[in-house]
């Protein structure tokens, strides 16, 4: 493995045609020495597992005939994929996560955008406090965040449930209809501040002169924000959307924790939970096919979204 990486790096490290041989630039060996420490583990722990999963997804385990037949692994073409697409649990998990994403991602990014825009105006005081408060959840691991929120959802312990009951309501955060949105709330809590800071950083990079003229013309802060600032930071909004789509399709820790206190989350609630459940049953080839399908959906959605929006925004 190391040999292949070194050889590949040596091939690419040959100096380009434009450079004189004696301009003091690094020799090919030096370039390889800088790149190898990253590329060796990158190949071993990123590219090889991907290739391995793809290869495995084309295998099937069969049994020789009869009661005493032994099992053997053989090439099965698209058999595993056909099974994935016929699996109703797979489609149910995709449906759940699709609904989750269509609602949670826009809500979260809209809140993040409004916060970023407000922090970029002279309207607010205590800006540092608001920034830290919103970004703080990013320091909390998803598992811990879900544990914290599950206490706030629990009918026995939650002060929120107590307060709502005092107001005459009967909240059931863990009920069959609500639990998906309770999980969505944990994701929103975790990632709003992170996305807000990406958008805020982009806003800070806009030179003031760009809307100086609009201000002199009497444009309101509102108009400046939506007509000038939002279009300029569109690339950041697209970036946060893509990251959110990827995150949604990978959802595992939060629903897995909520499953510990709610019977309304099955072991196949999200595609990733399904893949893990199938792998736990030792059906690694089927789990690999599920993982590959999730990864392909992720890529198609991320790139599709980027193509679509960059065409519209004329970027």
């Amino acid at each position, binding site marked *: 493995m190391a040999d292949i990486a070194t050889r590949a790096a040596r091939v690419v490290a040959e100096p*380009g045609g*434009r450079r004189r041989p004696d301009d*003091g*630039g*690094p020799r090919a060996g*030096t370039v390889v020495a*800088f*790149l190898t*420490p*990253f590329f060796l*583990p*990158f190949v*071993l*722990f*990123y590219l090889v*597992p*991907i290739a*391995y999963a793809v290869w*495995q997804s084309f295998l099937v385990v069969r049994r020789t005939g009869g009661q005493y037949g032994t099992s053997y692994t053989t090439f099965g073409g698209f058999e595993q994929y056909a099974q994935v697409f016929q699996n109703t649990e797979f489609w149910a998990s995709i449906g759940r996560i699709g609904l989750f994403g269509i609602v949670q991602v826009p809500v979260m990014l809209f809140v993040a955008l*409004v916060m970023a825009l*407000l922090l970029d*105006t002279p*309207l*607010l005081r*205590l800006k540092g406090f608001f920034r*830290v*408060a*919103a970004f*703080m959840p*990013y*320091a*909390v*691991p998803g*598992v811990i965040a879900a*544990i*914290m*929120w599950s*206490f*706030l959802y629990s009918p026995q*312990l939650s*002060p929120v449930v*107590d307060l709502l009951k005092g107001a005459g309501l009967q909240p059931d955060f863990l009920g069959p209809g609500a639990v998906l949105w309770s999980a969505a709330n944990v994701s929103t809590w975790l990632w709003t*501040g*992170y996305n807000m800071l990406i*958008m805020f950083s*982009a806003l*800070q*990079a806009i030179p003031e002169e760009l809307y100086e003229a609009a201000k002199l013309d009497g444009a*309101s802060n*509102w108009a400046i924000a939506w007509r000038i600032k939002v279009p300029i930071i569109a690339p950041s909004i697209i970036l946060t959307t893509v990251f959110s789509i990827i995150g949604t*399709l*990978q959802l595992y*820790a939060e629903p897995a*924790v909520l499953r*510990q206190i709610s019977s309304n989350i099955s072991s196949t609630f999200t595609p990733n939970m399904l*893949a893990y459940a199938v*792998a736990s049953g030792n059906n*690694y080839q089927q789990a690999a096919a599920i993982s590959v399908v999730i*990864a392909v959906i*992720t890529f198609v959605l991320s790139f599709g979204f980027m193509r679509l929006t960059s065409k519209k925004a004329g970027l």
Partner: protein
Amino acid sequence: MSIQTPIRESRVSRTAAMALMFLLAIYFLLPVYFLIVAATKPQGDLASTFGLAFSHFDLFQNLSTLFGRSDGIFGRWALNSVIYAVLGAAVGTLISALCGYALAKFRFRGREFLFSVILGGVLVPTTALALPLFLLFSATGIVNTYLAVFLPSIVSPFGVYLARVFTAAAVPDEIIEAARLDGAGEFRTFFSVAFKLLTPSLVTIFLFQFVGIWNNFFLPMVMLQEESLFPITLGLYGWNGQTARVSLLQESVITGSLVSIVPVIILFILLQRFWRAGLAAGSLK
């Protein structure tokens, strides 16, 4: 009139903006406040008293129960998390910096191709890698060891991306040329000249990778069976699953959660400017 209108408008919008931001701040801080309050209560008060009000102050009792449980396994988990995150992020930052520096400053054939492979890596969900990695690691026998979590954690394509962007911005070509003319080798130039200029950027890269490893759950869950190798996230997840049978564990899950997030939150607040540098670079893409 023409002067008064904007002033009145801005007073109304100022109040509305502040009110909205306060509501959102309460939303973000509420779970942490609840956790602090709950960590100070005896187990019996968790269900019987109002969750947002302090009752008996039993924090120190709770802490000693937490660290005393199962021969101090929680301390072990905390130490493991620190080992995985600090060592992993340190090694990861160094290799990302070397690679990003080379991609920014050396001209060689295939450079842009390698960079786009790395950028593709940013989009690869790490959870998709965990299962095939488990099978590969099983075959080589390093499953259920420190290495099984540590080795995949050192690879951060986003770190290389940041290192390239930061190097291009912070290390002028003239300085590298000057060092070369002085007869310094490329590694000497990197470690003695570029490293100093890149230090703030390296802190940023380190922080992002540190949090990524600290928060990781799926990879250790897939790789580890031995409790003494667990990071905090996996350990508390296991305890949380047992609270239905062992209800006394609940207080330890709460206190343990608080202990695990406080150091990282403090790190966040102290090192704020480094976060903003990373997020700004991320938003440039």
